[in-house]
């Protein structure tokens, strides 16, 4: 068959948006000699058609008739201009190419079936450039080594994509006679990430069986036992020493986070810590489920692909919860290094934080938007300790029928895999993410990056909803980390399963049986189907061009059997697979650090501090990110992430109306503050919980229906001091959940978030606990936003401001840490939240804003500029603790449980009556002016600034 090459360029006169974007990125690298960049799409098509059809294809399908022109064959560099360098970027063989799949189908619509299509991008760089710079540009801007090949010049073709067929060779990895060194060497050579105790348990198992394991048996065990899948650390016994006092946990998680849920025993919790996501009641008929995952290591290597598959993966969690939920909202929280670094400040093997951020945002954007799921809530934190190890948290909420919250796979059910095909992508993802990152990871673990295709997942979702309604399956779960191995292994844990690996549909030939079994290729789900529903379910998937394939069946002997063309390649006991992982006892130490509080004298005014905090990366507007996400698709949007008179103020929490015909809503928020963890992770965790709760309360979420999720991202917890900080945070989770009566319903941890630099030093992330939260809104019409509403309205602060600048943004601005981290009054905090929820339900509140990063001054500034109104405030009315005498404390302290509330004068009495016995005070009013004025207790203007200036400072930092 002939291979046709098509190149599609922008027509002169139409701007080359991609080329211009690349040029901008090249200039950001400090390369100024490139004058222009032209981009082109390249299609390599093998098929039987003639020249006339080729022109038709180019004209009707591949190029735009108005703004593009095509070239059949290889175009030369443009003549008569500055020196031109041609660079082509091709996908590595085996990497999913969704555009190629669409083009193949479209060519078939045009009457030519069976075309083989590949796509590439071509760049023409105009201007003088050195070879080393070409390499930098290719590596830093144009391509990602993990998934793409770069071809420079105009002669070389990319390597052939045709792979050799696989010939079965059953491989054994002898283990029975190995000594300790041999066991450790085997684990290391095969990237199993199993420690010696685990290898010994496996050795003992196979000694009992009197045979050697096959490769796929060891790989299955390594995956099922990986930190990523079983959370060995959080479930292990811990001997904790807190400032010299001993405390023992038999199972850390069960005695902290889970225990709160158990002790609270809420009747609206339907399925918690049991399934892929935690399920709670929404209304009489429906339930909602929520899951948050991290995808840190893949996003460090391939920010775009890593983040895209992060969101793609977590969407499949609700889809695979119970009998399957319909996703209704995404959340995303990222942690990056500060993006203004020069390239020589970046360790080897690490991408620039700006590139990581742009790639991660684009990845979440493209996947989430294509799935048609609104991304409604998120946050971004910057700290240079995330440089080598960015954190990418992605969450998803799903809606389901209340009576479909549980699955019931049975012996004799067929195992059906649906959705995408299996390829070599994502091999060892689960084990890789359980280890430490190094400067060599980029080359060693490129195969661990999965490649996503949102439309494959969307198509699959469309059909799953119908198959669920029709009752065509008994159980469903997602193929996430660990691939088929985890999905089938978990679903059949109590039954037993046999799988014919040769029946699994593949993206290309050449995969070994082991690769098929452990591949983490995306967009796949596994169903358990009664044999009598086989035809019906295959038909319904086929009707919308989604692949569904029977690959085996569930048995009743509690064994996992894998075959390839009839030959058995694995036989493991489900019991050993799921319960054989050795239990550990770990040491943990917490010593309260000896920190001191800086002493400073009061200044005349604090405009500079306020502007500095507003423009700091953590506080600054994230509008550049938020607008790239579709936050209104599905039509359920009520409180959007950006609010206020010109839709650009920072909303506290999102509210959606999941059912278009019901005014019941769902409020969604998060809380996190890694800076406090540098002082004490216990108070950090409580502050995170309090912040997440405050955000829900601020928009009108119910106080008595708050559900929490925990996501721990920590460093290497074999270090007792690191584990000690985690134990502190876990204890706080218990205390916070109990205080608020808000159970944890789901959680996840990602440990070993450290980066080993070439010079032997290690960068460890700060202890980072993300708290996600949701609550019910009885009637969305009663929701409240944070923007100041009307001149003449009164402003109150509810909650006490204490001398708690430790870990604050005010201190960060002065490069100080401090000692007085914000604490949480476990009795007072819920009382305040409950009363404010009541005030909002009673319609007494015009606006409500949570006082958090940057303290009172920042909260007032945000309310003023979001509402386009002035505010006059007087610190005289601020309820403070006795020791909060300093002005910077009153303005910028980040004490918990504080709300700024705007009340119409006619509601003054009712509001004040409701707040009686709580620390609250009137601090000022909304004005028709354009200034924020804050007066000290002595009546001096300590902040006095135009709201436009404040807003500009807040907006310009991340206005990319």
């Amino acid at each position: 068959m002939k291979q046709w090459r098509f190149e599609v360029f922008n027509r002169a006169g139409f701007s080359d948006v991609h080329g211009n974007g690349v040029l901008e990125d090249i200039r950001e690298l400090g390369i100024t000699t490139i004058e222009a960049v032209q981009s082109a799409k390249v299609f390599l098509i093998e098929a039987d058609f003639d020249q006339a059809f080729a022109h038709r294809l180019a004209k009707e399908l591949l190029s735009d008739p108005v703004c593009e022109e095509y070239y059949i064959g290889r175009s030369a560099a443009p003549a008569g201009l500055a020196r031109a360098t041609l660079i082509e970027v091709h996908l590595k063989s085996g990497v999913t190419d969704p555009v190629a799949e669409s083009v193949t189908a479209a060519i078939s619509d045009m009457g030519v079936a069976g075309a083989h299509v590949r796509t590439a991008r071509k760049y023409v760089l105009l201007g003088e450039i050195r070879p080393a710079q070409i390499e930098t540009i290719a590596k830093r801007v144009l391509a990602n080594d993990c998934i793409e090949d770069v071809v420079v010049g105009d002669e070389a073709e990319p390597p052939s994509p045709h792979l050799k067929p696989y010939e079965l060779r059953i491989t054994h990895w002898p283990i029975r006679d190995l000594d300790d060194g041999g066991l450790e060497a085997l684990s290391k050579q095969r990237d199993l990430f199993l420690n010696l105790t685990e290898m010994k348990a496996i050795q003992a198992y196979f000694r009992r069986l009197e045979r050697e394991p096959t490769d796929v048996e060891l790989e299955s065990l390594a995956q099922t036992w990986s930190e990523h899948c079983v959370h060995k650390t959080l479930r292990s016994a811990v001997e904790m020493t807190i400032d010299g006092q001993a405390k023992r946990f038999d199972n850390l998680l069960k005695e902290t986070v889970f225990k709160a849920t158990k002790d609270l025993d809420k009747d609206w919790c339907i399925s918690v810590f049991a399934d892929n996501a935690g399920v709670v009641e929404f209304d009489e008929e429906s339930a909602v489920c929520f899951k948050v995952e991290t995808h840190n290591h893949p996003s460090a290597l391939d920010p775009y692909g890593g983040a895209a598959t992060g969101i793609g993966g977590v969407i499949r969690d609700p889809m695979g919860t119970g009998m399957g939920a319909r996703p209704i909202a995404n959340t995303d929280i990222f942690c990056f290094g500060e993006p203004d670094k020069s390239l020589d400040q970046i360790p080897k093997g690490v991408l620039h934080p700006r590139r990581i951020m742009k790639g991660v945002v684009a990845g979440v954007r493209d996947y989430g938007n294509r799935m048609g799921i609104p991304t409604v809530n998120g946050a971004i934190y910057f700290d240079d300790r995330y440089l080598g190890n960015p954190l990418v948290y992605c969450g998803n909420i799903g809606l389901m029928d209340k009576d479909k919250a549980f699955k019931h796979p049975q012996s004799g059910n067929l195992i059906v895999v649906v959705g995408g095909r299996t390829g070599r992508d994502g091999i060892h993802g689960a084990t890789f993410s359980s280890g430490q990152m190094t400067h060599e990871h980029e080359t060693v673990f490129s195969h661990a990056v999965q490649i996503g295709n949102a439309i494959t997942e969307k198509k699959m979702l469309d059909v799953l909803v119908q198959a669920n309604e029709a009752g065509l399956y008994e159980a469903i779960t997602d193929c996430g980390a660990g691939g088929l191995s985890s999905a089938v292994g978990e679903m059949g844990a109590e039954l037993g399963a046999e799988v014919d690996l040769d029946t699994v549909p593949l993206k290309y030939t050449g995969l070994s049986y082991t690769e098929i079994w452990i591949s983490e290729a995306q967009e796949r789900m596994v169903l358990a189907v009664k044999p009598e529903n086989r035809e019906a379910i295959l038909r319904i998937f086929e009707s919308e061009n989604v692949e569904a394939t029977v690959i085996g069946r569930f048995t009743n002997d509690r064994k996992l059997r894998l075959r390839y063309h009839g030959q058995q390649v694995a036989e493991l006991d489900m019991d050993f697979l799921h319960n054989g992982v050795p239990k550990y006892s770990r040491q943990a130490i917490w010593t309260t650090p000896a920190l001191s509080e800086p002493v400073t004298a009061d200044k005349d005014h604090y405009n500079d501090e306020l502007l500095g905090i507003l423009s700091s990366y953590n506080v600054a507007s994230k509008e550049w990110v938020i607008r790239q996400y579709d936050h209104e698709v599905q039509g359920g949007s009520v409180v959007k992430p950006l609010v206020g008179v010109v839709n650009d103020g920072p909303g506290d929490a999102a509210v959606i109306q999941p059912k278009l015909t019901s005014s019941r809503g769902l409020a969604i928020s998060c809380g996190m503050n890694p800076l406090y963890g540098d002082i004490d992770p216990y108070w950090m965790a409580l502050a995170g919980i309090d912040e997440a709760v405050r955000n829900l309360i601020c928009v009108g979420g119910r106080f008595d229906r708050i559900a929490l999720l925990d996501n721990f991202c920590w460093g290497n917890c074999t270090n007792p001091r690191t584990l000690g900080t985690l134990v502190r945070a876990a204890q706080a989770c218990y205390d916070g959940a109990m205080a608020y009566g808000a159970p944890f319903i789901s959680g996840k941890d990602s440990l070993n978030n450290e980066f080993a630099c070439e010079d032997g030093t290690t960068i460890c992330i700060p202890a980072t606990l993300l708290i996600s939260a949701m609550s019910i809104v009885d009637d969305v019409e009663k929701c409240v936003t944070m923007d100041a509403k009307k001149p003449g309205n009164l402003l109150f602060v509810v909650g006490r401001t204490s001398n708690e600048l430790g870990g604050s943004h005010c201190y960060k601005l002065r490069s100080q840490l401090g000692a007085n981290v914000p604490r949480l009054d476990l009795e007072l905090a819920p009382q305040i939240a409950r009363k404010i929820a009541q005030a909002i339900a009673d319609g007494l509140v015009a606006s409500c804003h949570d006082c958090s990063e940057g303290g009172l001054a920042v909260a007032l500034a945000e309310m003023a500029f979001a509402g386009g109104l002035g505010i006059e405030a007087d610190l005289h009315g601020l309820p403070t603790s006795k020791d909060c005498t300093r002005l910077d404390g009153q303005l910028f302290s980040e004490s918990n449980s504080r709300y700024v509330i705007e009340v119409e004068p006619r509601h003054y009495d009712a509001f004040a009556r409701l707040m009686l016995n709580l620390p609250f005070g009137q601090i000022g009013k909304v004005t028709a002016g354009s200034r924020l004025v804050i007066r000290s207790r002595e009546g001096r203007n300590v902040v006095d600034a135009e709201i436009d200036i404040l807003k500009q400072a807040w907006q310009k930092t991340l206005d990319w």
Partner: protein
Amino acid sequence: MAEVRALVLRAAGVNCDMETQHALELAGAEADRIHVNRLIEDKSLLDRYHILVFPGGFSYGDDVAAGRILANQIVHHLADPIQRFIDDGKLVLGICNGFQVLVKMGVLPGNGAFKQEQVTITYNDSGKFEDRWVHLLPQTDRCVFIEPQRQIYLPVAHGEGKVVTADAATLERLKSEGYVAYKYVGPDGEEGPYPINPNGSVESIAGLTDSTGRVLGLMPHPERFVRRTQHPHWTRLGEDLDPDGIKIFRNAVRYAQENLLQSCSA
């Protein structure tokens, strides 16, 4: 009274079909979401409907270009029935990706008056997807979906929404002959730069109609403003706030009630 029936066309990657169905139902129509494969299998399905809606989304992932692959599929399998649908006096609405599909099929502004090489929709000048609210001012009085002169407020959410023409003469004809359905304007009704014009469309074009006025394509999403609480700052506005998006659907349903209820076979 017989009901106005609307078909909301689904395909791989289409994702605004449910809220579009909801908007049609609120406006008084009976609406079904039908997969393009079903329509290709049984083209007579279309005969039962008065309104055909191409909803928003990312049909086939916007691969190659937004709307291109679905447009190609429809051109090769459904061109005749859809042309007949329009010729029968029925209504076609394309929202966002659906607008892109209609333009890439040649249905808009098309329908004999323009060639496909004359108008297209391409990447936003900003180079990225953006979700933001825009003001829209009607430019035509022949489009049955539109209340002439009345400025409305709706969200856009797209990365490829810039309408361009091959030449100035085409643009002039679009304007002078009433093909421009809506322009992006500021709150004061005047055209302006980004972000008033969110994507860099020539002459701030936000939507197009055809020569009959019974086909409308627009980048903004009317189905996302059918309820007061969808307005981006409804908490600042009164309870009498009347959602602008629903009116486009109501106008279509009313037109169908008055003109089409006898013309349907089922």
